[in-house]
């Protein structure tokens, strides 16, 4: 067997295994994904079961509020927004990455919180720390704010008749020096960040 044939055979082996592995972790009912668990970093086996079998039918909302030194609690402020679709989004939609990022983080928080609480210290998970870091530093807090907390809610999106539901409430975390002090409305800060 020549070196070239050997390399070609190796290539066939890699592609063949990759394809078989991909097929094996596409259970249409999403029961158990033993093979997918082998792909610890989620780099090898794609998930081709787009929006199926049970698609997400809610919008997630991320909100935060502060507890002031006086003990008063501020109103909830929503973080992030989803842009209305525009024709140019078919080629250019930079805001979409931020929308999907927030969506994924919130979805992971909800997935973790659905698992056994005893097994997982939520406040040490990546999605939790990510949101806490983000909210603490990138969103405005009152100068006399002592702590902040966030919540995740779900709504029916354009279906206004469905009442929003609270799905996850974080602990209240003490704010250290260095957090962003309030210099405007959260919506304005968000727009400024996105350059819109």
């Amino acid at each position: 067997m020549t070196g070239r044939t050997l390399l070609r055979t190796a290539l066939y082996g890699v592609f063949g295994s990759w394809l078989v592995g991909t097929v094996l972790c596409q259970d249409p009912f999403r029961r158990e994904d033993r093979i997918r668990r082998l792909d610890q970093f989620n780099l090898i086996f794609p998930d081709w079961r787009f929006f199926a079998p049970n698609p997400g039918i809610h919008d997630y909302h991320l909100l935060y509020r502060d507890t002031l030194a006086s003990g008063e609690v501020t109103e909830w402020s929503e973080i992030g927004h989803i842009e209305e679709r525009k024709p140019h989004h078919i080629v250019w939609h930079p805001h979409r990455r931020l929308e999907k990022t927030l969506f994924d983080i919130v979805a992971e928080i909800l997935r973790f919180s659905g698992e056994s609480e005893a097994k997982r210290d939520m406040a040490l998970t990546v999605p939790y720390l990510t949101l806490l870091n983000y909210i603490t530093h990138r969103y405005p807090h009152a100068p006399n704010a002592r702590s902040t907390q966030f919540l995740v809610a779900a709504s029916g999106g354009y279906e206004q008749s469905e009442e929003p539901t609270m799905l996850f409430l974080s602990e209240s975390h003490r704010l250290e020096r260095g957090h962003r002090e309030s210099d405007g409305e959260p919506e304005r800060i968000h727009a400024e960040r996105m350059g819109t």
Partner: protein
Amino acid sequence: MHEPGHEDGFDAEGLEATLENVERLTAFGTLISSLEYLAAGKSFADDDLLSWDVARTRHKALAGRVGDLLTPLMKSPGINVVFAARAAGSIVLLVPRAPSAAKTTATAVLTASNYALHLRTPYGSDGSEHISMITYTSLLASRLARSDERAQQACMHFIALQSCLSYGVAGISKLVSPVWRNGTAVRDIFRTHMYGHSRVYELLKSKPWAARLLAWVTITGETGFPLVLVAPKPVARGILASGLSFHGGNAVFMGLNRFLWAFLGTYPAVAYTSRNLGPIRGRSKSRLVARLTGSKR
């Protein structure tokens, strides 16, 4: 007559053209995606949503020395160098007369950075990045195996099979779902701001038959897509055209713009692999006929 170095029965020009078309379409999508990342680059700052300091705690390896080595390129502002390199690599692949070595280097950069970015954080990525990983890995393998046309052909077939698998699996996963079969799934996806559209939702809500029709068109189209590999030429062309319009519609109404280029990029490979669209098949058939009839080419 065969060109020196080209194996018997291979349409070298067809293979080369297919590789280039896959490269260009995928690279165009990567260029847009990289520029979008650069436009919204603040997210990667230490105190922002995709902070490296937080993200690296996901994996033990990244939290340790390996992560330290990657830090200059994974942390803001260094991460922008990665996106700029990806944009530059995409441009190299889009330039028809760029030197082959430059294209191979660009493909290697795009492949490695695709994996690295996905390892850095899974947040914000989607199926379009996964198909791109498959495409770039196959393109890199085919560039490294330039002297072996059979290996290059295998790379194109792999892209095509993964692409067909993606549609087939997506379709079957919907077919087994009662909420897809009765149309409520598609109606309720469109009610979300995330993947929906207000006017489409109003239409689907007021006309349940339209929701069922849309659901079944999606199920049938996705499940039947792999038939492109064996269907007669006009049908196979129709399948690819409907795939294109499907992604166009998803980009406009569902915000799935990145899927358009990533999946369209696989279509030249799908056409190449298709029994009746690919250039290789005609040659193979002639050879088979020649062998059966005992005639020489």
